[in-house]
């Protein structure tokens, strides 16, 4: 399919060339008068101007460009390792996508998930009493478009949690949801002059995300086998 | 108009003859200005140079005279010159050709004169 799509422009170019070649011959019989073609062209330019103005009102946001993703420590699950080593407080608040504070007084809590196969970190702490804190931490969601890579994590849906009696349920967003993003790429001469490479590919990768749960030290945490849970070392 | 473009006679001669006729018919009177070469060119759709040549012919024969900057005018003796010229040249020439043809056809002198008189009478009667 992709091959066919990539051939389409070439095909069109050939058609245009043929069209130009035959242009003069066709002109000899019927052609638009100056007035007609001027009118049509003015309409065209007007449409372009109007759509340019209208396009300014489309929902848009500044793209979060990653200059060099390999350099960042968060890459390759760095955040998870950091949190596991008890350095949760050093994680930038911007990485914490959602947080919940849930009052809970029971002795046992069961963790459950409808569909979730990434890490869950549990920290048992003395600081909490009668409540648990749940943080959803989202790592980079790197998207490569042409030569740039950008972080689109803020546009991807977050997990939710639901508390029912003694069960903390991790709820995934609506199944199979698709997020349609559009990247307004600069015209190539513009990219060229701001030093961006014309060629090459940015890379796309869905980064990791994990839950960080803080519970009172005396709370018993239970979970089923298929879940992947680590305890913070402290 | 009256010019015969296919005739053996050059156009400028025809122009001259036409002007002579105008003088004979007294359409052009003595000391009257004749048509300019441009007027003649326009009238007969001919090149003005050709018309000028016709006018010059008449000027050389003193039928017309020049007034500086004003054009050509009919001279006082124009009528006489034209009549003389027509008689001595054209008429004689025509008669000569008629006689030559008569000789070729072996027409007797009396018969020729008879024919001549008959034609004369016919044209008088018209």
């Amino acid at each position, binding site marked *: 399919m992709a091959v066919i799509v*990539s051939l*389409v422009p070439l095909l*069109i170019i050939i058609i*245009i*060339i043929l*069209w*130009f070649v035959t*242009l*003069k011959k066709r002109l000899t019989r019927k052609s*638009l008068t*100056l007035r007609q*073609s*001027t009118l*049509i*062209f003015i309409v*065209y330019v007007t449409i*372009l101007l109007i*759509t*340019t*103005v*209208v*396009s*300014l009102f*489309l*929902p*848009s*946001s*500044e*793209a979060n460009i990653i200059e060099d993703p390999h350099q960042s420590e968060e890459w390759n699950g760095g955040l998870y390792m950091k949190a596991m080593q008890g350095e949760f407080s050093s994680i930038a608040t911007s990485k914490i996508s959602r947080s919940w504070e849930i009052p809970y007084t029971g002795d046992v809590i069961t963790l459950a998930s409808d*569909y979730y*196969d990434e890490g869950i970190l549990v920290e048992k702490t003395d600081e909490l009493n009668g409540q648990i804190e749940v943080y959803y931490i989202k790592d980079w*969601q790197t*998207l490569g*478009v042409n030569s740039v890579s*950008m972080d*689109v994590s803020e*546009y*991807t849906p977050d997990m939710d949690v639901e508390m029912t009696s003694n069960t903390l349920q991790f709820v995934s*967003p609506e199944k199979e949801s*698709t*997020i*349609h*993003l*559009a*990247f*307004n*790429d*600069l*015209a*190539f*001469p*513009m990219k*060229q*002059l*701001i*030093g961006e490479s*014309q060629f090459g590919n940015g890379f*796309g*990768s*869905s980064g990791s995300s994990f839950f960080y749960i803080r519970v009172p030290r005396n709370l018993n945490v239970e979970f089923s086998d298929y879940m992947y849970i680590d305890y913070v070392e402290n | 108009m009256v010019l015969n473009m296919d005739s053996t006679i050059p156009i400028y001669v025809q122009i001259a003859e036409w002007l002579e006729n105008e003088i004979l018919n007294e359409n052009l009177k003595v000391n009257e200005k004749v048509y300019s070469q441009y007027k003649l060119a326009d009238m007969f759709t001919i090149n003005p140079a050709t018309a000028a040549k016709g006018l010059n012919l008449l000027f050389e024969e003193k039928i017309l005279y020049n007034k500086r900057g004003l054009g050509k005018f009919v001279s006082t003796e124009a009528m006489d010159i034209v009549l003389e010229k027509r008689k001595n040249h054209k008429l004689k020439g025509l008669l000569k050709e008629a006689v030559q043809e008569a000789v070729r056809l072996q027409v007797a002198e009396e018969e020729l004169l008879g024919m001549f008189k008959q034609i004369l009478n016919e044209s008088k009667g018209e």
Partner: protein
Amino acid sequence: MMSLTKVSLSNVVVMQFRYKLKAYSGVFLALMVVQMIGILLSILGHGGTSFSNGMYTVDVTVSSPDLVIFLTMIWAFMNAILITTKAYREDDFTFVSNRLSYNLSNMAFLLTVCLIGTVTALLTTGIIRILAYVTADIDIFLTITHGVTIADFVAGGLATFLFILLAATAGYLVGMMTQVNKGLIILLPVIIIGLNYVTQSSSNPGFVNMLEFYFMEHSFIMFSIKAIVTILIGFGLSIVFSNRLEVR
């Protein structure tokens, strides 16, 4: 006698230029059609990527006027060839003209239509976005504006103009060479292959180096100098070639 009219070259060039804008109005329609094809192709083959993590899919559409600009360059190239053809030249020499005024007015014409082509090509950005929004059900547009100044946009616009003009220059030169001598059509591939050979380096074949000469230049000043010098050489050669051309 009728007195001879004194002529000034610039007056004749201006008259010819104005006549061409009217006489060759077909090129604007061609531009329109080419750009509309570009817009449609930009929507159809949006060339984005997507990733899925099992929970959700992120689908990205790239919206850029690149294809339209590229097609506009082809349009400029073809147009420039077209106006060197005999049929168009005859229109010119019907009225007052010499080869210099013919060339200069052609160049003024190309300059003007390329400018119009550039502006409209850049203006298609909006309609491409709107059509993408409608057809691909876009949730949000990601835009790079941070760190890009107005000056960058202006420079980018000028660079686009120069690229399109480069295409027109190439077309004009090729067209004029073939008009002057049909044998040059055969010579052209030879020249291109020769240039390819001359400019090749250990890492790249020649044509890549030739393209990089223009497409990889990041300095606006340097790019402008390269482009303008190329354009001047191209047009200059065209004038030299056509100065002995027999017309009509």
